[in-house]
């Protein structure tokens, strides 16, 4: 029994035969994927390949139609709130209250996550993402890039085991992308897991431990050496993109 638990907890994500349809459209068609703890995984694929849908399933915003998904050995469909505490997510929209300040947003979400020592946590997190000067600005007045940084702060504040990032670099300048890379590297060195989607493939392959190319809702290619398999991954990615 302990061996099973140990094996299960080494896997950050285990997806078995996951099917997700939106009406008549099949997005995930029996997706099987195992992601070990402590890795940076980049999900690649053309538009509609199912990357964002899979990320939303991991964030528990979208329910699967069949199959199973577990995180750190815990079935996500059975253990909602406790599994959500394991993840921090930055999805397409910043998901912030535009008429509240950065501080008010972070304080509010700290209450939603039932965090203690909130002021210290916020101070540490905003320094990490570089938004200290904008702390008392309303989110509405911030650029898209800064809003994305605030969203990242919200995702990091509860120190989750897994970071889910959906095209995190979109709208960020080069300085912010470098900062994001550094946060991802810190996360990895702390033994945490990062799962991200991107369309900036070459850059992602430099920082990732694993590249997964999704094709028609299944895993088309799963590489554990993305920087050395670059040509193969780029070929798989490009051919899928061209298929669209």
């Amino acid at each position, binding site marked *: 029994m302990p061996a099973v638990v140990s094996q299960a907890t080494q896997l950050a994500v285990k997806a078995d035969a996951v099917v997700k349809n*939106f009406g008549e459209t099949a997005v995930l068609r029996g997706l099987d994927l195992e992601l070990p703890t402590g890795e940076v995984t980049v999900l690649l694929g053309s538009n509609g390949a199912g990357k964002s849908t899979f990320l939303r399933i991991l*964030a*528990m*915003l*979208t*329910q699967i139609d069949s199959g199973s998904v577990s995180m750190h050995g815990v079935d996500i469909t059975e253990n*909602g*709130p*406790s599994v*959500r*505490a394991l*993840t921090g*997510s930055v*999805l397409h*929209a*910043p*998901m*912030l*209250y*535009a*008429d*509240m300040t950065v501080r*008010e947003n972070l304080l*509010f*979400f700290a*209450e*939603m*996550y*039932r965090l203690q020592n909130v002021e210290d946590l916020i101070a540490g997190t905003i320094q990490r993402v570089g938004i200290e000067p904008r702390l008392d600005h309303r989110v509405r007045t911030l650029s898209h890039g800064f809003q994305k940084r605030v969203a990242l702060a*919200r995702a990091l504040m509860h120190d989750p085991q897994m970071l889910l990032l959906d095209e995190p670099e979109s709208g960020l300048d080069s300085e912010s992308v470098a900062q994001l890379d550094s946060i991802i590297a810190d996360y990895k060195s702390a033994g945490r897991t990062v799962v991200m989607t991107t369309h900036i493939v070459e850059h992602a392959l430099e920082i990732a431990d694993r590249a997964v190319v999704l094709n028609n809702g299944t895993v088309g290619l799963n590489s554990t050496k993305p920087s050395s398999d670059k040509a193969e991954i780029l070929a798989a990615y490009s051919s899928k993109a061209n298929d669209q």
Partner: protein
Amino acid sequence: MMGSLAVIWAIGRKDLLLEIRNKDVVVAVAGFALLVLVIFTFAIDLNQDNAELVGPGVLWAGIAFAGVTGLNRAFALEVEGSTLEALMLAPISRDLIYLGKALGNFLFIAVAQIIVIPVFAVLFNLVVFRWEMLAISLLTTIGFSAVGTLFAAMSVRVRAREVMLPLLFLPVVTPLLMAAVESTSHMVYGRSWSDMAQWLQLAVAFDVAFLVVSAFIFQHILED
């Protein structure tokens, strides 16, 4: 338990803070309800007899119709900014989100009533500043918020949500509306608590049933 109450209060307080800054909902609800009252004052040749007769109906119909406007807006804001998804990411059960949003809606409608009821008292020349009115208002507002929050969540992703919400909301709150109108009538005619007890009991039963059922249904509505 205290943790859950803190989450519910935090969501309600956040909605109130946003409302204080934007004044979207209270202005819409109070403005609409006042408009209904003023139109009826002109439409009906008011005297003391018919004011007592029609006043309670006009008041609660106005608040119910105006409430729909506010309920629509309160949830639309969460969806437009995708902040509803941010709440769904948090490790809290969905029923706490429902209760927090219902608390916010309760506060909006209550504030709107604080504006509307004194104007009603002046226009219809009725004495309404009584404990009975406070009880009726509280019970009716709890029911409106309980049902309205659920249906606002159901209709918020529908393209014709402005039409959908009243179609869902108004038939369901009819028993509560009847209880509010009948209790208020008893009050303006100067009758005792015991005369209106059955209507207040109906309102209590309605509130409890819809708070429990709506909190249960709400979690299924949020999922894709």
